């Protein structure tokens, strides 16, 4: 289904969609305030963007450097060309360890690879431990936002599912109460898991270490209690030096949620005695994106979600309307590279206002890439551009007489047409908005009168 159809569904519940819109704008506002408290904010964005330029220009050698250093630190390094291989590698480790239940902290990459259903099919219990992710997992949903996985849900929904799954009091919607119930439930899971899976925020080539950021501490609760830690990392997450963490960590949490840093920033360099760390380096379309000059900059993304929080379309259509693991503006430039056919409506889910580009901490030219994808898509799918309305418009604009006549006719018609026709499904511009009041005369008529 295309984005507009999904978005219309999201907007059915007006109160909820309004809350969604306002809440994400509030997060955007927090990001603005805290970014202004850092005098060198714009320098940091430039630096981060330049570091990532250097990473993309030397990706191969940084990955080899990372591998060499990680191995020297007793980390097992695996390479996966695609999602299937990634999933196979993870399952292989679990089988070797005879592990039947794992805990997992937030990892957008494992969502992208559909690891959970794959492991479950193979008889492994997967417990997502980030609170928001656990909630959506209970509901058999995917996260609707990369930083705020359950932002599409109200506490009433969460109270209901917790009552069903965790036997909390019916109707108790208190966030403290519900979080505490999840704490008790997940503590048990942490204590019993032999293998823990995490994502990776940054991999450092110079040291072979990797960094994971959380506020809940769930990644650390999992890995420090388990015998084996499997970290899944997209190859673009590499950065050259440890000192570069200073730049990225100053930007990440401030851009994501408007806080100065996440409460836990964990640097994994070598396993504790008697334990194991595995890292899976995943391509899954990233090298193909690197080979697209217009779109390779999308690989700079550090997954802060700021572009979603600011996007007027995302806020009013919800994460699920994108039907892609990474929704919002950045998802709309990443996903067409993975499956152009499936995601062809996404680059059009934008006003091209440029707000995403303005807030991006690594200065990805998101709105320009959205525009470029539109060009690619109309080339690949000529039917798309030739809707009836566009064909008529093409004829009308080409002939001055037709243009003048149709303008007069429309101004006349809109005055007398009943709303049921003006706001019928045929007029896309009449959906969710009122048309502006009509001028009495055309600009051309006004000009003739006043500028003789």
């Amino acid at each position: 289904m295309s984005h507009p159809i999904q978005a219309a569904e999201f907007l059915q519940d007006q109160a909820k969609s309004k809350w969604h819109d306002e809440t994400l704008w509030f997060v955007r506002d927090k990001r603005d305030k805290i970014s202004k408290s850092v005098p060198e904010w714009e320098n940091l964005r430039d630096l981060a963007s330049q570091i990532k330029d250097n990473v993309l220009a030397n990706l191969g050698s940084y990955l080899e450097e990372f591998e060499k250093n990680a191995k020297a630190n007793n980390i097992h390094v695996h390479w996966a060309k695609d999602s299937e291989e990634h999933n196979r590698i993870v399952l292989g480790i679990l089988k070797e360890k005879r592990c039947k239940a794992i805990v997992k902290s937030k990892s957008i990459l494992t969502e992208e690879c559909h690891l959970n259903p794959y492991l479950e099919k193979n008889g492994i219990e997967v417990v997502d431990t980030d609170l928001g992710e656990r909630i959506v997992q209970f509901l058999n949903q995917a996260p609707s936002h990369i930083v705020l996985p359950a932002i599409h849900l109200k506490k009433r929904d969460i109270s209901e599912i917790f009552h069903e799954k965790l036997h909390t009091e019916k109707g108790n919607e208190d966030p403290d109460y519900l979080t505490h119930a999840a704490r008790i439930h997940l503590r048990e899971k942490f204590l019993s898991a032999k293998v823990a899976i995490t994502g990776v925020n940054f991999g450092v080539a110079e040291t072979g270490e990797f960094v994971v950021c959380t506020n809940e501490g769930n990644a650390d609760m999992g890995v420090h209690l388990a015998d084996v830690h499997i970290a899944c990392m997209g190859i673009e997450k590499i950065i050259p030096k440890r000192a570069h963490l200073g730049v990225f960590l100053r930007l990440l949490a401030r851009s994501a949620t408007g806080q100065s840093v996440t409460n836990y920033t964990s640097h994994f360099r070598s396993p504790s005695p008697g334990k194991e760390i595995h890292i899976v380096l995943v391509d899954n379309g990233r090298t193909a994106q690197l080979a697209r000059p217009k779109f390779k900059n999308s690989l700079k993304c550090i997954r802060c979600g700021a572009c979603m929080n600011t996007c007027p379309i995302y806020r009013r259509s919800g994460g699920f309307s994108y039907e892609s693991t990474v929704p919002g503006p950045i998802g709309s430039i990443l996903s067409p590279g993975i499956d152009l056919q499936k995601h062809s409506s996404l680059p059009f889910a934008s006003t091209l206002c440029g707000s995403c580009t303005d807030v991006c901490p690594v200065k990805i030219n998101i709105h320009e890439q959205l525009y470029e994808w539109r060009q690619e898509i109309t080339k690949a799918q000529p039917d798309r551009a030739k809707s009836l309305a566009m064909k008529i418009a093409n004829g009308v604009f080409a002939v001055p007489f037709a243009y003048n006549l149709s303008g007069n006719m429309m101004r006349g018609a809109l005055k007398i047409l009943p709303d049921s026709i003006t706001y019928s499904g045929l007029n896309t511009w009449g959906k969710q908005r009122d048309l502006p009041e009509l001028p009495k005369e055309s600009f051309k008529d006004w000009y003739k009168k006043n500028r003789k």
Partner: protein
Amino acid sequence: MSSRDLILSKIKAVPLAAKKLPIIPEFEFEGDLKARFIASIQANKGEVISKADLLGLLASGVFEKVYSRIEDFSSFTNIRITEDAHQLNDLNLAIIRGQFGVAENGAIWLEDQDMGLRALPFITEHLVIVLDSANLVGNMHQAYDMIGLQESGFGLFLAGPSKTADIEQSLVIGAHGAKSLRVVFM
């Protein structure tokens, strides 16, 4: 061809112009380090208390099971630490030393030797970190200068208690890890 070689060869096949790494300038921190650090910790929902306050809390008996890695409070330690972190599940309070703090965000740097068991600062119900107020830096660049390439199997910036806002963006303290963070300057 192995997937490793396949991925590396695909990268090599992409013609990419050279891009130099930028030099990170010295970003100075302006303002009072300690005052800013305290404000940052509070913003992260932690608090800064005095040694006397901590001694009072310990003496009051609100924490049943206590483990201190700092000598000043070791008389309050009443559990035996084994190699297995699972044994710490019912620990009520851990007291550890932080290496240094970062004023701009309240982050405190810890390494293996400071934690003993890596799970300690997470699994404990409440956490106290003792910090020398001479060991404060302004920002994260200065922090990584301090750390240098120093090797620890695990390094952690800890900036507050475990928290979440995943239910309707309402902030709740104590998601999975420590329900409180108290910092004591000594």
